[in-house]
């Protein structure tokens, strides 16, 4: 790969600009759908772009007692982590630009990076709201991370590969949602937890802790965290729809499947009341983890006895 092509990959497509635009577009769909379900008008299509332009142009206020390097670096690391993860997934149905054996695990870790950054950011700003928010964000991370990973492990096991591209190809011949429904549900809800969408928005519950870990962030820093989250949304949707909804073979199937998934997520956001943090943890470890583990055991047994 020559240098020019690398730059193109990183800055324009599939990472960089395209990813950001897609993220904002998906964010708009989510906001609009939730608003319509709640009997509101909802934002116009360019609202996320307008928010981005406005916030990026604004001054970033730095609290007096923070570590300034960390304060500026964390949003960048968050956005970089999410964008790097995008290199390994079949974005828009095309073959991932980068791929190696075991990239599934790397992608999952990269997707956790934004949450870790949010946690660190909350700890760094040492505002009381941020501290509680950071504690909650990290507590929640420990709750959903394992079940989410196990839920994506199911398709990997049946495909016999740890490479996202190969699993995607395998999944195109069969809809794994039919054979592994539990895994699909756990993966979908896990994604909502990862993105801190309602009802898993305890880390940023505004009625208790204002804006949670990001309370002290403003302007550019805040927007970068938000963009990181939008990218995470796109990557997460791509992963789950590639694994469970019959794979992604082209831009058409990508749009159709990921938007369908987003629709499902919006419905759940509308229907449910926020969980308290203890309820979130209880839900994941009492039901999510155990159910998905049971499914993994079944898959392993099935693979072992029926080669």
């Amino acid at each position: 790969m020559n240098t020019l092509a690398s730059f193109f990959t990183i800055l324009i497509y599939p990472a960089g600009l395209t990813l950001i635009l897609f993220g904002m577009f998906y964010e708009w769909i989510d906001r609009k759908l939730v608003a319509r379900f709640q009997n509101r008008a909802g934002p116009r299509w360019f609202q996320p772009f307008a928010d981005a332009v406005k916030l990026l142009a604004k001054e970033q206020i730095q609290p007096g007692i923070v570590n300034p390097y960390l304060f500026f670096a964390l949003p960048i690391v968050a956005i970089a982590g999410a964008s790097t993860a995008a290199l390994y997934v079949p974005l828009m149905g095309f073959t991932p630009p980068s791929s190696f054996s075991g990239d599934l695990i790397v992608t999952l870790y990269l997707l956790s990076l934004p949450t870790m950054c949010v946690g660190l950011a909350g700890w760094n700003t040492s505002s009381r709201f941020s501290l509680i928010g950071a504690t909650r964000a990290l507590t929640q991370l420990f709750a959903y991370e394992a079940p989410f990973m196990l839920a994506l492990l199911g398709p990997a096991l049946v495909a016999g590969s740890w490479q996202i591209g190969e699993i995607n190809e395998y999944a195109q011949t069969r809809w794994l949602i039919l054979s592994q429904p539990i895994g699909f549900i756990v993966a979908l809800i896990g994604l909502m937890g990862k993105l801190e969408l309602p009802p898993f928005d305890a880390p940023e519950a505004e009625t208790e802790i204002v804006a949670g870990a990001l309370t002290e962030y403003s302007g550019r820093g805040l927007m970068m965290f938000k963009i990181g989250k939008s990218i995470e949304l796109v990557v997460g949707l791509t992963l789950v729809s590639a694994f469970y909804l019959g794979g992604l073979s082209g831009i058409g199937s990508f749009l159709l499947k990921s938007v369908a998934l987003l629709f499902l997520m919006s419905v759940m956001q509308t229907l449910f009341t926020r969980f308290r943090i203890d309820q979130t943890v209880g839900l994941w470890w009492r039901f999510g983890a155990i159910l998905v583990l049971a499914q993994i055991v079944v898959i392993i047994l099935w693979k072992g006895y029926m080669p």
Partner: protein
Amino acid sequence: MNIEQILQAAEKILEPWNKETLRPEANRVDIVMQADDLHAATVALHEAHWGYLSAITGMDLGVDSGQMEALYHFCSGPAIVSLRVRVPRENTSIPSIADILPPAIFFERELSETLGFKVAGLDESDRLFIPDDWPPDVYPLRADFSPEQATPVAEKHVEEIPEQGMLTGNTFVIPIGPQHPALKEPGHFQFTVDGEIVTGAKMRLGYAHRGIEKAAESRSWFQNLYLFERVCGICSHTHAMAYCMGVEKLAQVEAPPRAHAIRELVAGLERIHSHLLWLGVAAHEAGFDTLFMYSWRDRETVMNLLEQVTGNRVNYSANVLGGVKCDIGAEQAEKIKEGVDYLETRIRHYLEVVTTDAMFLNRTRGIGSITAAEAERFGLLGPTARASGLMRDVRIEAPYGAYVRYPVSLVTRTNGDLEARCEVRLEELLVSCFAIRAILDNMPDGPLTVRMPRKIPAGETISRVEAPRGELLYFIKSNGGENPARVHVRTPSLCNWVSVLEKAVGRQLADVPMLIAGMDPCFSCNDRLVSVVRPHGSEILSWTQLRKLGIEYYSR
């Protein structure tokens, strides 16, 4: 038992301390006693389970008389017994009764901060109502107070949250308010948390002080109506109604039946608007925004009805002294019925949601449970008390105005948790819908107003009405002039605070906004007391100056 027997029972209990018995009104007995006997008398009333402490009114009887008076109003059904304690202005020491009746702490703070009563054992190091930079030993409700005395003391201005309160070991203080997304009105709470568990709670009120009680003393009886309507933006009608009924009682004027019916009708509509607003806020605090959006959408229906009837959406201004301003014609009655029919179906739906939605119940069932005994001890009022199984509703206990002719039924639950409070409030709305229909079907004919005298005969009266949040008490005193001598307002929110502060400890931080919302606090109601200066400012601004400042600030 009729009123007379209830009052005699109280008189018998209070016999040992009784110095003089007064009968200011048919349903009231005033027992004059020495300040030293107050504690013993309260214990006796409390142990005999005679009524509950409704309010403490403080009065300065003037420089000439050299005396101040504190009235401890105890209510039992329609009967009111006031313990009158007179103390010389130079030595205003009175004992505290907060050890027997916890809600008294708020009333005693009010006495101490606004009138300078020296309540034994009261912590005076910080303030609950008046600003922190208010000068010491200046009491705004005293007869000899003048605004010049209220020059702010700069060094008295204390930081709301000391920096060292931030991190001490594992516990730290979470400030909620005065500006916070969970609060729609300004109030300040400090919750000490250990991780997620609340270990301590403290509150500060007074951010929306407007000095209405003081202002009332310099306005005429008629002007005051508009002032008291503005005590609260949600239950403005009940405030105006309580004031009007009190003044009418003093003037011995009876409003015509049609006026009473319209008053109850507007009060019913106001209750629907208030409780639907509350439902939305509670749902939002729990993180269930869908219910919030839907209930507020439906609330628009009742807002439109109110606007149609009275011409206003917020301060309805339906009352005048001696009657009401607005009439209801046949066409309007039809529209109200239509609206109420629609609202009834929606309220039934919400009742189903709050009792069956598993996720919402996760956040309401078994949370903040208050037993009937605790509710009695905390002195709770309104729906919060009724959810704990306390039968406390002025509309039923002591029917006033049109509630005699169009009675409402009592709604209670026994669980006392947030779910029970949701149920009680919503079911009350169904009751209100029935009452509104009954009124519209049997509206009495006749005039809307009767003539009121400009000067109200000397006397004292207590007017109690059931606001959406509970019993609202107005104590009105006239010296026979064009202005009232003293108007004391005790709003229901003030009595319910104890429940939040007591119940928050030991709970998760995430439950705290729900607990605050659970009693439906109304900060503006609490904060009507006294303030001449801006809470944290250091200068007194006139209206023109303030306006100029605003224009300059925003043109920058």
